């Protein structure tokens, strides 16, 4: 299935990417930064909530690969590699990437994220 493209434009630029190119979106209040898998990023002057709506409207069902993580992050759940609640980290990675991406989040948010993913895999728990 061909994935749809996300198109964002401001007065000067238009950027067109697929959802697979998008690793995560971070936010510092009223503006957001899109981080792509190749390490480049693009800043836009709308907040995370607006980004959510944009993803929903442009991607439709495909938007469900993205997960809102707390106040500041939307992550592409396809790239979730590791969640460590005690060190308050979630790491995004893929085999094709040069480097892994480490993101910080609150313990509560990470607990919810972990549960969300476990539930979707019907609670496969292995004692590490």
């Amino acid at each position, binding site marked *: 299935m061909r994935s749809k493209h996300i198109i964002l434009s401001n007065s000067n630029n238009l950027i067109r990417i697929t959802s697979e190119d998008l690793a995560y979106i971070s936010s510092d209040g009223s503006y957001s930064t899109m981080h792509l898998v190749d390490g480049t990023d693009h800043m836009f002057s709308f907040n995370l909530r607006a980004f959510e709506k944009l993803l*929903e409207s442009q991607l439709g069902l495909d938007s469900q690969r993205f*997960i809102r993580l*707390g106040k500041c992050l939307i992550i592409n759940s396809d790239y979730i590699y590791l969640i460590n609640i005690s060190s308050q980290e979630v790491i995004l990675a893929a085999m094709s990437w040069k480097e892994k991406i480490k993101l910080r989040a609150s313990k509560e*948010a990470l607990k919810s994220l972990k549960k969300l993913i476990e539930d979707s895999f019907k609670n496969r728990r292995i004692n590490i």
Partner: protein
Amino acid sequence: MKTQSEDDKVYIIGQPETNRQSRYIAYFWWIGIIACVIALIITLMIFLGNDKSNQIAKGEDLTEVNIVPKAATAPLFMGKEGVPTFLKWVGANLEYPDGYETEDARVVVSLIISKTGNVENVKIVCQPEEKAFGKQVIMVLKKCPKWTPAKLADGSPIKTIYTLPVRFSKAKR
């Protein structure tokens, strides 16, 4: 730190979390409707129950009480015995008809104790298809010893009619 719990929401994009709330609301609606329906059914039953309280429960027919003038007497078997002795006599003297020992049967006969105490007018009220059973009963009653007839209050004898059911069982119960 204060608003952290509010902002720590984690959810999948494209699936608004308000789904959960609206689901809860839907559940409450359903429970409310079902509760109302049950309440309605219960009140209906109470109303119907109240109507029925004016009716009377139908009981059984109690055993018939036979009033006979004190001086009247029942017939007596063999001069002075009661009906149970007669029944025992019938049981002792009645035999299974030949060739029918593997069958059950029920025969009902009516008989009259005449004014002179003889058993007369033995009639079959009901019998199975195999008439041999009925014939046995009639035969045995022909040999029945004499009775003392029933007497009215003034001492005059009178006929009595009895109904006797007989059951033939192929095996002892």
